[in-house]
């Protein structure tokens, strides 16, 4: 029983990172109907920016303040990166067919992966510890301070995002664009601006995920974005793509099921489980757990 609880805790902390990345997929899909393949790689860049920033801060005692600075820096850098990607790669092909958009996204993703290998070096790097480390023991379950930070920060960010989308003017405009881009444009919403904001926000969340994963699993490498990105995408589809609470739910479910498979079956199936879930979801409930069925109009 304690093992099971321990696995659930581990799964939650992994899943909350998937959820953070999945939010970016879901938001971009919501406004552009585009699977932003490069999103996982933005997350990788976020982890690296965090790595270099924390190296700059090295020598100081690990503290929550420096962790906070590192995370904000990485989020700002990736928000800019998201804006640049949107402006240079996606905006020129926005009116083209979905296939063109998809191939462009794959191209951007490959560019970031290979550019990352060039700039950061192909070898894995080890993330320095940012925050003080201590363990809690609750009913036989071990909770590390990293896990608590990861879960806490992710949920804080998700709550802030929820507030932003539901309560601010920009958030309202974002929902309008996601509902119907052309109608939103007719209502005087600057759709280009909203799409840019969406990319910036999604990328910043991915960067936060990157720094958080660096705290929890300190090994980072330029290709780490592929598999995390794919799993987060699966999480977004599982929850219902385009649906913000769905992405969070999907992320947590994927995280927990992955930890369960590794714990009780075999670690070689670690990456297959997410795809297995994806295939089942698409066959049984393509709109996802919380998604709505969209009618096809001719």
């Amino acid at each position: 029983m304690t093992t099971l609880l321990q696995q659930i805790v581990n799964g939650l902390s992994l899943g909350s990172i998937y959820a953070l990345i999945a939010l970016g997929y879901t938001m971009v899909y919501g406004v552009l109907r585009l699977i932003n393949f490069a999103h996982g790689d933005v997350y990788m860049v976020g982890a690296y920016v965090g790595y270099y920033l924390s190296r700059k801060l090295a020598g100081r005692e690990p503290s929550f303040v420096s962790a906070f600075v590192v995370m904000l820096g990485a989020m700002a850098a990736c928000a800019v990166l998201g804006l640049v990607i949107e402006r240079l790669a996606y905006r020129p092909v926005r009116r083209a067919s979905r296939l063109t958009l998809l191939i462009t996204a794959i191209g951007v993703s490959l560019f970031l992966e290979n550019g990352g290998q060039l700039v950061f070096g192909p070898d894995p790097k080890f993330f320095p510890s940012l925050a003080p480390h201590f363990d809690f023991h609750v009913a036989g379950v071990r909770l590390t301070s990293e896990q608590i930070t990861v879960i806490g920060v992710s949920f804080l960010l998700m709550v802030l995002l929820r507030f932003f989308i539901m309560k601010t003017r920009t958030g309202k405009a974002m929902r309008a664009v996601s509902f119907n881009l052309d109608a939103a444009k007719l209502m005087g919403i600057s759709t280009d601006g909203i799409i840019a904001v969406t990319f910036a926000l999604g990328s910043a969340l991915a960067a936060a995920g990157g720094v958080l994963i660096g705290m929890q699993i300190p090994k980072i490498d330029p290709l780490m974005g592929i598999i995390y990105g794919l799993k987060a995408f699966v999480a977004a589809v599982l929850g219902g793509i385009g649906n913000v609470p769905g992405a969070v739910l999907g992320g947590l479910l994927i995280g927990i099921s992955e930890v369960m498979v590794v714990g009780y079956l075999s670690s070689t199936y670690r990456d297959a489980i997410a795809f297995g879930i994806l295939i089942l979801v698409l066959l049984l409930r393509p709109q996802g757990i919380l998604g709505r069925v969209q009618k096809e109009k001719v």
Partner: protein
Amino acid sequence: MKGFLLAVAVVAVLFAANALFTGALGAGLAMSPYLLQVICLAGINIILAVSLNLINGFTGQFSIGHAGFMAIGAYTSAYMTVNFGDRVQSVLSFLPSAARDGAVLLISLAAGALLAAIAGFFVGVPSLRLRGDYLAIVTLGFGEIIRVFILNIDAVGGARGFSGIPKIASFFWIYLFAALSIVVVYRIVHSSFGRTLIAIREDEIAAEAMGVDTTRSKVISFVVSSAMAGTGGGLFGHYLMYLHTNSFTFLKSIEIIIMIVIGGLGSITGSVVGAVLYISLTEGLREFAQYRMVLFSLMLVIIMIVRPQGILGHREVASFLTRRRRLPTVPSAPL
């Protein structure tokens, strides 16, 4: 009759070229082993690109799991050759050794293609109901699942890789199958069935309204494409004599997509041009290995922005020479 003569001519030319390149007509005329290997790998990539173009370019169903079917074909045929090759050799002991090797290769490739086709059927039936991005992701998922499963089968070496495959695929066999795959796709595309595929690509709903059984057509196209990818994989294994699941990752599928996107989705000659161009560039830029994938990815984005239909678009090389369009080019509808 004309077709038959042409086929005989192609086989004769390939046979002679094979003899020439491998030095059977005098060592001085032989090609350097490195260049020959590059040419042979280009041939395998032609098979893969042409087959992927059938499903991605002509049917308009964006699949990014082609490497999975290639892996099934590669591992099945290698397993056949390693475990049953001797038996076939002894049954056919009255034949010269080259012919015996050819027979073993053909039987193994057939087995590989068959299993890849069966896998294509079981992947295609559920996933081809989905469209666009979802189909892409599901095929990607299946491709990865196939790879992980092969990685866990001990009979084919698992994580150690599969070694000890005899080198019985040569320039001759590779280009024979490359020519065959071009002919197969050409004949399919120019048949009435091919027109249903193109109708599905242009507008699936309209095609369905016209009475096309879209799911059936898409599945057939997918199965044929998978079988051809399996053949390509089989040749790959019998040429390099070693297989590892790392050769069949998601990146391999992306490579094949880059080839057909460069050449033109929906152009057979385009796939050939794309495959040859891709291989030449990767080999030519070997000195700049760390920059070349950066270059390819930039190229992919730039092609999408300035010329989304690829170099040739839906057209074939011949249509440029005769200044006549083969098919009216319709801007592809959103998926």
